[in-house]
């Protein structure tokens, strides 16, 4: 009986733990099966230290040709499912070929790992970091165990952060001037600004500010662009007259944003836009889209 079961079940349990797992900050990620799980968060150039515990199922031994742990950074394009592009791959040999009879733990350490890209889970693309333990075996398939972790890289406050200011309009119809206080916002930032109406000859019903995410994947003719509206924030209700200025104060924290990613490993980009939309009484929409950069600010706390 045992033998039969053993044929379908891995002959051992593999547990990957981080040495500072208890204290490390965690983040939720979406797993393949749609569930969310909490995973530790790392940032680039951190040491990733931990241990791998291999515990054979009772009364069994695991024969192997070597045990290794890999740290992989992968980009997965959904239209190209199944193909992973590893942009980072580090390996540590944990054990020489042999047999494992009882629970055995292997400490591992990847020091100062360069993880330039952040974990990302988008519409068409996923970037993820995993620790992969492989027990290589002859004749039978290798035993593999994955452990996800999340990478977040923090940016310093940009030294140059100009406001976005622009006059736009449709001749003899609508002229507005808008201003957003910055062009670069961190994830918990507030967009402050105002819209100044220079000329209004249409009957405006309302005005809203949208935050749009544009994710483009692939390159060349195989570029896929997906735009997603993450926030619709009504700025104004009713029709303004010339000379009115409408304040903008939009808190970014309630929205699930990521930093702006530009040309990640030549595979994908994620950009954010503020889209100012004016709707008139006939439901015509007049809009102006402006890119903003979003970055992750090191939380001081």
């Amino acid at each position, binding site marked *: 009986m045992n033998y039969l079961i053993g044929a379908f079940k891995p002959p051992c349990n593999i547990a990957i733990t981080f040495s500072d797992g208890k204290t490390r900050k965690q983040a939720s990620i979406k797993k393949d099966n749609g569930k969310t799980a909490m995973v530790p968060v790392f940032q680039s150039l951190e040491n990733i230290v931990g241990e791998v515990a291999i515990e054979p199922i009772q009364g069994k031994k695991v024969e192997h040709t070597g045990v290794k742990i890999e740290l992989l950074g992968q980009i997965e394009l959904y239209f190209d499912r199944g193909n992973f592009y590893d942009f980072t791959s580090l390996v540590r040999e944990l054990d020489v070929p042999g047999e494992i009879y009882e629970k055995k733990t292997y400490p591992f350490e990847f020091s100062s790992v360069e993880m330039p890209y952040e974990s990302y889970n988008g519409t068409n693309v996923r970037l993820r970091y995993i620790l992969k333990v492989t027990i290589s075996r002859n004749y039978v398939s290798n035993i593999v165990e994955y452990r996800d972790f999340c990478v977040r890289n923090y940016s310093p406050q940009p030294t140059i952060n100009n406001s976005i200011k622009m006059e736009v309009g*449709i001749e003899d119809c609508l002229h507005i001037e808008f201003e957003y206080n910055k062009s670069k916002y961190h994830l918990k930032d507030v967009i402050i600004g105002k819209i100044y109406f220079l000329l209004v000859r249409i009957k405006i019903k309302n005005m809203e500010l949208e935050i749009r995410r544009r994710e483009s994947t692939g390159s060349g003719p195989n570029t896929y662009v997906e735009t997603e509206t993450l926030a619709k924030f009504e700025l*104004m209700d009713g029709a303004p007259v010339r000379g009115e200025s409408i304040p903008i104060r939009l808190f970014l924290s309630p929205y699930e944003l990521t930093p702006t990613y530009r040309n990640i490993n030549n595979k994908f980009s994620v950009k954010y836009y503020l889209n100012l939309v004016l709707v008139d009484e006939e*439901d*015509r929409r*007049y809009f102006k889209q402006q890119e903003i950069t979003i970055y992750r600010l090191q939380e001081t706390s």
Partner: protein
Amino acid sequence: MAPDAAAEDEDKWLAEGVAGIQHNAFYMHRSLDSNNLKEALKFSAQMLSELRTSRLSPHKYYELYMRAFDELRKLELFFREETSRGNCSVVDLYELVQHAGNVLPRLYLLCTVGSVYIKSKEAPAKDLLKDLVEMCRGVQHPLRGLFLRSYLSQISRDKLPDIGSEYEGDADTVNDAVEFVLQNFIEMNKLWVRMQHQGPFREKEKREKERNELRDLVGKNLHVLSQIEGVDLDMYKESVLPRVLEQVVNCKDELAQFYLMDCIIQVFPDEYHLQTLETLLSACPQLQLHHQKSSCSDEGLLSQPQHPGEAVAVAVSCSNTVEGEGAQHLCRREKRRQGSRGEQEEERRRRGRQQLLCSRGILEKQLRPTVDIKTVLSQLMDRLSNYAASSTEVLPEFLQVEAFAKLNSAIGKVIEAQVDMPSVGAITLFVSLLTFALRVHPDRLDYVDQVLGACVKKLSGKAKLEDSKATKQIVALLSAPLEKYNSVVTALELPNYAQVMDHLDSGTNKVMAMVIIQSIMKNTTCISTADKVEALFELIKGLIRDIDGAQDDELDEEDFKEEQNSVARLIHILHNDDPDEMLKIICAVQKHILLGGPKRLPFTVPPLVFSALKLVRRLQGQDGDVGGEEVPATPKKIFQILHQTIEALSSVPSPELALRLYLQCAEAANDCDVEPVAYEFFTQAFVLYEEEVTDSKAQVTAIHLIIGTLQRMNIFGVENRDTLTHKTTGYSAKLLKKPDQCRAVYACSHLFWIDDQDGTKDGERVLLCLKRALRIANAAQQMANATKGSSGSVALFIEILNKYLYFFEKGNPQITSSVIQGLIELITTEMQSENATSEPSADAFFARTLRYIEFQQQKGGSVAEKYEAIKVS
């Protein structure tokens, strides 16, 4: 049908809205009870989303708003508890509510939390208020914006950083409070005004009505302003008022300007108005013209060219489609200003823009001025007048600020600016100004005259006023000084008074004249110089004579009598102790009333005559003292005047009246010992009697009057007297009816027997008269017999008997007891004759006469002796 249906729809929508609020409020409360803040915020935002409706009229929207308002109170309470318990910091809460996606719910929540925030004092009230009032700009829909800002005003009222308030901030704290309220006010007013220009033109009136319902929301801000402790006079003068006025003037909306001016006047204290009069008044000529619709709508503003620098061609993409993806793309304009233009620059530019509007407003003043400014100004003046009247202590303040001069010039400007303001408006203003002047400067008659003069100027060049309202106002204008000074004399000193009256139509003019007279009567004002009388009669000339040949055929007889009686009373009241002056007065009056025409003379001449006679009597009383040539007031002269006057009356013709007056004069002349004058008057009386008095009844009355008067005359010489008595007796005997003849004749007997010391006592002629009377009585009796078949009344005999008895008693030697006896018997026989008609009154009369005789007999003494001989069987 349609309006009903619309109303029904509205009710339905309201019900839906209320249901929505209740539904979400229920869940909100449930979340509150379970301390689930996130859920509570979600439901409260949903609840407030009901207020986003555009389908309700202001009235219904208010109902909806109140529902939400109640719920928000509860929410606020929850927030307060939550934060005080430390479950959630108010700062976080302040951010949290701003996550709401829709602007209207977001701002309601923000205000609600803001209220808690201020109360917590974790941040200065001024910063929070500033933030709130700024953020509220997000709602530009007039109705929703107004209610939102009204909510803001409501929750912030007790949280202003006023002096002495627990939210008091730094040194400039009042400024902050004021700034906040002002800004909210300005924004609300803008929204309110904008309402007028949105929607179809045909619903203009409806909108106006709706706006009117909303006006208190706007006005409340001014009330709040006035409640701020820290707003002292200086501050009011320096910042509050100019700012408010700027808004009022610039909004160019008639309804708003009128209402707000009114508000300003009503909510701020009087002394502030007094001290800022100039500012307040200078705004007036800049207000919108009443009837002209303010065409300076947003549309007008929009068509203004941009700043020169900005007029740059714009790239346009106009794929004007309704489809989702074909939405229009706003094109980017070339960005010319380098770098980031600072906030300040922005502000400066905006202010420049506003100034541009301002100066334009001034330019246009000439073309299209004001609202119903008169009401506003009137109210202001009324208030100031009341203020002045409230206490005498404040009067110096009025003087100090030269309130009158300022008001006067302001009104002048307004009137000048509004060329086509109807007269009634201008006059209303003058009435108010006059009231003000009277209250504040009772001693400055020249002010009153100035006002009247201005009024004359305004009215000059125009025909008589037709507008009944305007005339009413003029009456008020003219009555005001009368009431104040209780004396027409004052009015008479105002040169412009009469001129103003000239502008009234004749009917009103009369009414006004009546008012004047009544005022004189009421106050028994003494008009004591000829000049004044002259002026007065000039004023009331509408009553004295027909003006400009105005035909008032359909004149009400009673009114006319009433008027003329008033004039008569007025003439009586004219008096001066100095005879010379009095004579002048009389002359003046005479001059005027003689112009009165036939209808008026019978009313006006008698009082004049009697007034003159009164003077004569007075002169007569002091006869000894006055004398000399140069004294103009001699009885003689007066009699001349009287003569003329009465002559005028006799030609009217009103002979009976004239005759009476002649007789009166004659009697007065008698008392003055001027025989020729008296004789002349009698002659005139007789001439009238002969030529003009034709009615037999009038003749009877006249003859009796003549007899009576003549009887009392004692200055005539024998010849004159004989002539007159002879004439009189002759007239008496020629009366038409026998009984009248009889009575007149026996009355004539008195002419020969004056019962005083040196009076004529011609017993013979007395007897002659009586006998003649008897003869006539007899003839009358016979005539009665002949025509009616029964003897006439014996009353005549009894009357004659009484005369006999009178003269018998007086000692006329010709009247003896036997004659009397005979007469008694005659009467007795007459009464007992077969065909005598029984006459109870005659019987009684006779019985009483007999009883008198008996009584006299029993009295004893000489009288009894005299009567002894008469036997009364």
